[in-house]
């Protein structure tokens, strides 16, 4: 699915990702844990092709190096980033945005675009599962949403777009206990042999709900240790001291 080789990323001439290697096979869930400021969000932006993130090395996605593709092209190919801080966009209505996004992706995949009724039925079904109030969807995108509502809205978008490679950047932070379960169920429902996840988190708790196949410790722009889900437990108890020079 995704094969990252010797990835280096700099922002405003500051080197942040410093030679990252990571291979995620189809159907796998990988978790990344690491101290604040170690470059986890930077990695997620670089994978999404954000402008201003100078990347070198290789990001192979289904056999194609996508380094030169722009953000929307990557999204249309099935890469999805659930943001750590979803942005508020006044004036752009959530429903409208969701439909535009869904149809852009469907069109790129050669699928039929959904009309208003088809879309509303689909969004109704998906948002009920995530316990998202439909009143929320008639408001401007993320404006006035609580922290948890914003995160749930990210997961709603994920479930609508049905991407193949999903990066979740601290989706669990800001969620209450019930919301964490709802979101985890949403994610688990999407797990499939054709879909891979990269989950960035600070807390082992999320990984109790979404069992990862691999856990990586990220420090100073690199993976410094990899293991199975027990590594997360170890980190929870001992912290990062052992891995950070």
């Amino acid at each position: 699915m995704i094969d990252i080789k010797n990835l280096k990323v700099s922002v405003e001439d500051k080197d942040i990702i410093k030679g990252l290697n990571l291979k995620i096979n189809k159907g796998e869930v990988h978790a990344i844990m690491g101290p604040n400021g170690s470059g986890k969000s930077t990695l997620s932006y670089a994978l999404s092709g954000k402008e201003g993130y100078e990347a070198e090395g290789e990001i192979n996605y289904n056999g194609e190096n996508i380094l030169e593709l722009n953000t929307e092209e990557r999204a249309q190919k099935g890469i999805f980033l659930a943001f750590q801080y979803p942005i508020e966009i006044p004036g752009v209505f959530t429903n409208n945005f969701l439909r535009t996004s869904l149809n852009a992706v469907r069109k790129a995949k050669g699928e039929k675009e959904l009309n208003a009724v088809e879309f509303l039925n689909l969004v109704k079904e998906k948002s009920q599962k995530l316990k998202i109030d439909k009143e929320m969807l008639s408001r401007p995108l993320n404006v006035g949403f609580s922290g948890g509502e914003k995160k749930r809205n990210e997961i709603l978008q994920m479930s609508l777009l049905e991407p193949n490679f999903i990066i979740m950047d601290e989706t669990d932070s800001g969620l209450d206990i019930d919301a964490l379960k709802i979101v985890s169920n949403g994610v688990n429902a999407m797990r499939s042999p054709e879909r891979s996840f990269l989950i960035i988190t600070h807390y082992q708790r999320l990984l109790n709900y979404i069992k990862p196949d691999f856990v990586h410790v990220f420090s100073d722009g690199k993976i410094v240790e990899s293991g199975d889900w027990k590594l997360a437990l170890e980190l929870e108890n001992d912290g990062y001291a052992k891995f950070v020079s």
Partner: protein
Amino acid sequence: MNDLEKLKNHFEGFKNLEFINSESVQSRIDAFERFCQKGVPSLKQEHWKYSPLSKDLIHFQNLKFSLNQNKSFNDTHFEKFDHYRVLLKDGVLISDDIKEEGLEITKYKQDQFYEIEKNQILDFNNAFFTPGFEIRVDSNVNIKKPIVIYNYFSKDFDGNNINNKNYIYLDKNSKAEIYEKNIFEDEKDLFFTKNLDIELEQDANLVKYYLNSTNNNKTIYNFIRSKLKQNSEFEKFNFSHNVSSCRDEIIADLNGTNAFVSLNNIQHLSQKCFHEIKWEINHNEENTRSSQFVKSALHDDSVAAFQGKIFVDSKAQKTDGYQLSRALLLSDRSKFLSKPELEIYADDVKCSHGSSSGSIDQESIFYLRSRGINEPQAKCMMIEGFLAEVINKVKNEDVRNIFYNKLNEINNT
């Protein structure tokens, strides 16, 4: 227009035209003399400093007046919703008078004109006007259907200057909604001035919408003077889209307690369009409120100017004056000029103003693109969202849809 000898000859011919009624001749002569004394607006005059007119009027060296005898009107321009029609073709009122249920719409009948010292274009308008419409609403009457004013500029008009005077009077506790739009059939040069006087009696309520859309080589001056008595309300929404050169000027006098005026303008400009907004709100009595809201999205080499003034008289305690302007600069060549002005002589007032201009938010664009929306479309969504904030406040659903459709039309081209 700066060759006064030429202009004088032009006026001599004009004032002898048949349609000019004898009562107004002397006022026209006086107004013309005032114009000649003051001269054409120039960038050196404070009042015209940011005005496209100060640059444009030089091009109109040979003014040509004309009356189009052809009264035909293309039906396709009519709005689909139920409304009262007021048709002005090349400055001439061609629709029939309306008299029903406390509403009266006729040709403009006033013949007394005031002077505003700094405003020589008003003098010009007073000298050269063709009578437009006059709308009167009786007391306690709520006009159920909106009135739609069509300013139609046809391709068979062979002059280059049209000046209209219009008048709206709402008697006590009456209510009306007016939607006005411009229709331009060609790209000929035209200098168009329009003066509208509005008088609202106690408890009257007027909402006015104006769509000034796509034109080329048109220099437009809109001047509205509104006087509000106690408890009356005047709300105005303008949508200016790709107007080549235009000044929208409004003076609102809040002359009775609890009077309220709300002025809103969105402008979407590209290429070399230049739109100027000049508003002056005079709080002359206690407990009066005003709101000014301007949003500008500026592409290419377009320029927008906004000058909003709040004046508060010493006896206008408890005034509430609000002003906000936001501009989106969509090219590094577009310009937004802003000059808020507060002149306050009372001590117990609440006045606030804010102005900002900047480019489109890149983080938002990234977010939209990360959801598969391509960059141009993401930008359109942002611009639309930015301007929609004002449109959302439009209460009349038909007009709101017209404005939204306009916005979509813009974004799809």
